[in-house]
């Protein structure tokens, strides 16, 4: 379903790199997962990184180009959502792989971490990414993945090591208490079909 949807969204040509590799294949590395492994905290662990990647794909699938983005307050302007950030992702992932091969590596995934970081830095510079985007904007898949994760409520909890639950509906009782310390298993990004699930709905 996900694969079919992404193919429909992005066209079939050259975008297979965004899709998870078929299970029956001879274990080629999922390039998006390889990138995620390079840019997301290793302390999350492999399973969580995989679930963040799945949630990111889910987010891309739910993106609606042209959606009403409101009109602002103070200085008004009508805005609508630009084309899907995913448009350039496959090419960007392929470019990282090509760059890795030019260094004699079999793939980006096979590069040592320091060299991966160098390639990512070069790519971000070329894409004129000078800060973490507020949300994925398509300039570069690495920045989009980072924004997707680090701008989440769950990453906010991780940074503060506390169960703040910025985007949850939590009720008024207990407002006055310091948020509880973050449990080791509390990270929720990607653990459900839709990321950032809100309680109280």
């Amino acid at each position, binding site marked *: 379903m996900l694969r079919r949807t992404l193919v429909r969204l992005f066209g079939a040509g050259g975008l297979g790199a965004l899709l998870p590799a078929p299970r029956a294949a001879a274990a080629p590395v999922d390039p998006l997962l390889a990138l995620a492994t*390079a*840019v997301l*905290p*290793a*302390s999350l662990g492999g399973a969580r990184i995989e679930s963040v990647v799945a949630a990111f794909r889910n*987010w891309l699938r*739910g*993106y*609606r180009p042209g*959606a*009403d*983005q*409101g*009109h*602002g*307050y*103070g*200085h*008004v302007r*009508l805005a609508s*959502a630009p084309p899907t950030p995913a448009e350039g992702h496959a090419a960007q992932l392929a470019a990282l792989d090509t760059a890795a091969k030019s260094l004699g590596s079999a793939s980006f995934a096979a590069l040592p971490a320091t060299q991966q*970081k160098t390639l*990512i*830095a070069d790519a*971000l510079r070329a894409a004129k*990414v*000078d*800060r*973490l985007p*507020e*949300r994925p904007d398509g300039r570069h898949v690495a*920045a989009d993945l*980072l924004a997707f994760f*680090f*701008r989440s*409520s769950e*990453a*906010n909890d991780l*940074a*503060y*090591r*506390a169960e*703040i*639950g*910025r*985007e*949850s*509906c*939590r*009720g*008024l009782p207990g*407002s*006055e208490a*310091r*948020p509880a310390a973050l449990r080791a298993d509390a990270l929720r990004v990607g653990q459900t079909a*839709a990321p*950032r699930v*809100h309680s*109280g*709905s």
Partner: protein
Amino acid sequence: MARHQCDVLIVGGGISAALLAERLAELKPGLAITVVEAGRKHFDFENRMEYRRRMLEYGENPWPGDFVKDQAAAGIISRSMAVGGSALHWGGVTNRFSEEDLTLFSRYGLAVDWPIAWSELERFYCEAERRMGVSGEPSPIPDDRRSEPYPMPAMPLTHNLIQLKAWAEKSGIPFGSTPQAKNTVEYDGRAVCKRCNTCEICPTGARYSPDFTFQRLLEQKKITLQDRTLVRRLALHDTNTKVVRAEAVHGERPSDPITYEARSFVLASGYCWSPSLLLLSANARFPDGLANRSGNVGRYMNGHSFLSAQIEIDAEIYPGMNEQHSLISRQFFRSPKDKPYVRHDLRVWQSPFGRGPRLFDDAGALLLGDALLGDWRGRVKRGAARVRAYYDVHPSRESRLTLDPSQKNRHGDPLPRVAHRFDDATLAREPATRGRIRGVFERLAQNGAGKILQSAESDYLDHPAGGCRMGGDPATSVCDSFGRTHDHENLFVVGSPTLPTGGCTNGTLTFAALTLRSAPAVAASLG
């Protein structure tokens, strides 16, 4: 051409219209009340959690399509045009003005007095608070006394606000929980706040929204509501000055005009579209627009300026607990007569300023993975507060809304342009005002080894109002204190346009209170 008849036609579908319609239906049961709104209605409450999710995840408008594309104006601060009006996006803050706002001229020789006694307005503040459902706590300032308690207990302070209150009050300035139209107990059939942190779209209904009132009135068959219908002109009786009809057009049937005939007409379209409609309705007998013999329609446009700062402090702050709730101090609502005139409110919020994740460190090195997380963690050890002061500025007569013939909607009507101008006294004291407020910010920052990280000043007026100011003298005002226009006995303007001055705190409750005060006069106009 479609033709509708009613007793009262209310033009506009925002908070003033909702409260007025509700009150009129009580005062005169059986009254035929029609509300006409240019924008669409958003009555799909069941979808609000999903709209909220889309807003959080994709930045989409939580009130999709709450504007009319070609119905824009230069100088406005919100394009929201829908049933519910700007209050759809409202944060729910329901601060009162103070008695000084109504007596600026007699106390300080500034601007103009309002034609209402404070004690009378205060009664309608109470009524507005009851109808909307306001939670709050008594102000520690004796001059802020109330004749009735708040309908609900105050929104509890979060851990963050408790820390910030302790910090801010070290300066000797008292702070309290900002009053809000949000339920802290079940109220009026609506749920208790669940602290969803997205008050611009409250998915639980705990924050008052005018669409709840409209839906209830519709269910009770007390009003007729016609959305997506733009009133373009008001027309007068051939031989007297009464308004006899409103000429409108439906957004999807622009070639099929609609006429509304009523005994009384009420403009409840806010500070921009109410004066605009009066100007658009110019005719041979009123060549400068209806209700405009004095030439004051579209003048004295007002609001309040503001200064803000981000202050780093030694406090354990966890951004995201309830970001839209704040502390307020009313310490500076009153200006001692023996000191230069300055009046302002003072609010404090939790802030994530300077504490977000970043991609490059101070040396410009790329941060990824655990290095990025570690950098972030290293920068959240100190907390941050956002402080803001709305301060009192007074309009000159040249603070205007005019019709711009170069900008027209699809019907060929010129669109308004708002350009605020201050009076001479405001301009003269502006540097001192800003200096005094910045001094208050610095006084706050001195607590807890605070450090001002960033300061900002307004380049627009917030909570804009005016354009049809009320007054006792028809030569210097557009309407009386009940909103009845001096020139047309059955034409009223309610809410924000009637304010002579914009105060120094959020205006919504004042707009609502004034509207409720107008309701009996509108009812009486029907005989």
